[in-house]
């Protein structure tokens, strides 16, 4: 039910972002979505991409601090309040969301949710019938 996301530790200075992006480009990894949680000194660069396992080992081999985090990818209703509905399902169940971000994929709004309460989240998704995406939906 979860998909693999790359999490990369980068320093907040010029040259660090392009280095990671070029490594991915050279490895023919297709980026689908990304976001950066930044602080003054460093950032966690999160990427949804094709072949996350291969991407991770390519980056590791180049000495990058990278890891795979598993996250939920929920499809939102394409109307005002659609995002709120998705989050409400989680928050009503008392699930803490560590972080979230959203993007469009093939015209659909996708919300990425990271939580440590995996089992509870699975139940909510099932019981509420939330449409979700799997690993195969991101193959490019």
């Amino acid at each position, binding site marked *: 039910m979860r998909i693999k996301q790359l999490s990369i*530790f980068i320093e907040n200075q010029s040259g660090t972002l392009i280095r990671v992006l070029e490594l991915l480009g050279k490895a023919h990894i297709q980026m689908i979505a990304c976001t950066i*949680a930044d602080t003054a*000194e460093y950032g966690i660069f999160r990427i949804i991409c094709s072949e996350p396992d291969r991407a991770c080992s390519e980056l590791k081999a180049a000495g990058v*601090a990278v890891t795979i*985090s598993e996250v939920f990818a929920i499809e939102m209703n394409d109307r005002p309040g659609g995002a709120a509905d998705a989050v409400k399902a989680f928050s009503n169940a008392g699930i803490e969301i560590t972080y979230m971000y959203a993007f469009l994929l093939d015209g659909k709004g996708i919300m990425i949710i990271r939580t440590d309460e995996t089992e509870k989240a699975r139940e909510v998704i099932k019981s509420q019938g939330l449409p979700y995406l799997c690993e195969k939906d991101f193959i490019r």
Partner: protein
Amino acid sequence: MIWNPTKECMSREQMRELQGKRLHKIVEYVYHNVPFYRNKLQEMDLSPADIQTIDDIVKLPFTTKKDLRDNYPFGMQAAPQSEIIRIHASSGTTGNPTIVGYTRKDISIWSECMARSLTSFGVTRNDIFSVSYGYGLFTGGLGAHNGVETIGASVVPASTGNTEKHARLIRDLGITGIACTPSYALYLAETMDKLGITKDQIKLRVGAFGAEPWTENMRTEIQNRLGLKGFNIYGLSEIMGPSVSYECDEQHGSHINEDHFFPEIIDPVTLQPLEPGQTGELVFTTLTKEGMPVIRYRTRDLCSLLPGECPCGRTNVRMSAIQGRTDDMLIIRGINVFPSQVESVVLTMEEFAPVYMLIVDRVNNLDTLMVQVELRPDYFNATLDTPAAISELEKRFADKLRSVLSISAKVQIKAPGTIERSEGKSKHVIDKRVLY
């Protein structure tokens, strides 16, 4: 194994008697051959006849690094140039280098001390031994080299630099022993990882590590990564070079070759001798040196002499690990801080690579300390993928630092490979303070 049981296992009374005789002789020798010492002794109204036993050593004047610099290049040399067969020079980053000339007898004693050290580490004539201290003016390379030849092992004079080639030689030749700085050993381990050389492909079993301070945690890390047993070897070119002292199998302090180098521990401020077990500045008198003997040389290394007998059977006194340098000591907000203290904390945290940098600055008349560490790629995992988790890690490190240093430090976690590694003595401090 013990190379020279007569000297390494001598009774304490015999040792003190031998030291007393040798001290009298060396004082007489420098009095007649080094104007610097003759003048000093005359100023203090002392003559060689006043020095008869080893206890008389406290009457003698100290020698400092500055004295050696002021007498550059040959002012401290006692033997005539025709007797000198080798000249080394210590690094002169802050002034004149120190020039040390060795007679044939000096080199022979040095080789003997080095052979005692290597034998204590378990090296025999059946070993293939790589010397990866720098060869050249630095005493490490040639000093270790002579010792390996003395015991009859096969020496591979790898020196420093070209680490990739060296890593392949360790694998291909089945090298069993190595002498280098501990930081170079870690650099070598990193290089092997990069080349895909694994622990089971190499035969290293003994490491002789010295020329810079290191910690037990660093020892564990080197041993785990290279699959060898690591021993401390201590020395300094002003006294001889590596093998002034060496560890035994007990690894509880390093035995000093005190039939040649007499140790004292003094308070670096009052210059008064301290009791066994107390930490202070290490002072050495060379008892047999001909080329450049020194009397009560202040090493600026901080350590203690360990009281009691060693289960290994050696009776020569042991010194603790070096706990810092009197001149590496940073005074930050009035508190004495040693880079080695920071290192000991870094090495307790598996999330970090064993490298670090202290950056000291002064902002609005207040000293600031920042400690940079590097995230180790293997330990970056899904639980660390938020700024909150990283700052939690920073806080944990900062708390540990504060409890060891007694001052608070700002912590900065850096990406892998971004802190500079050095192949020689590691540089761990950037002091940006401009003081007027």
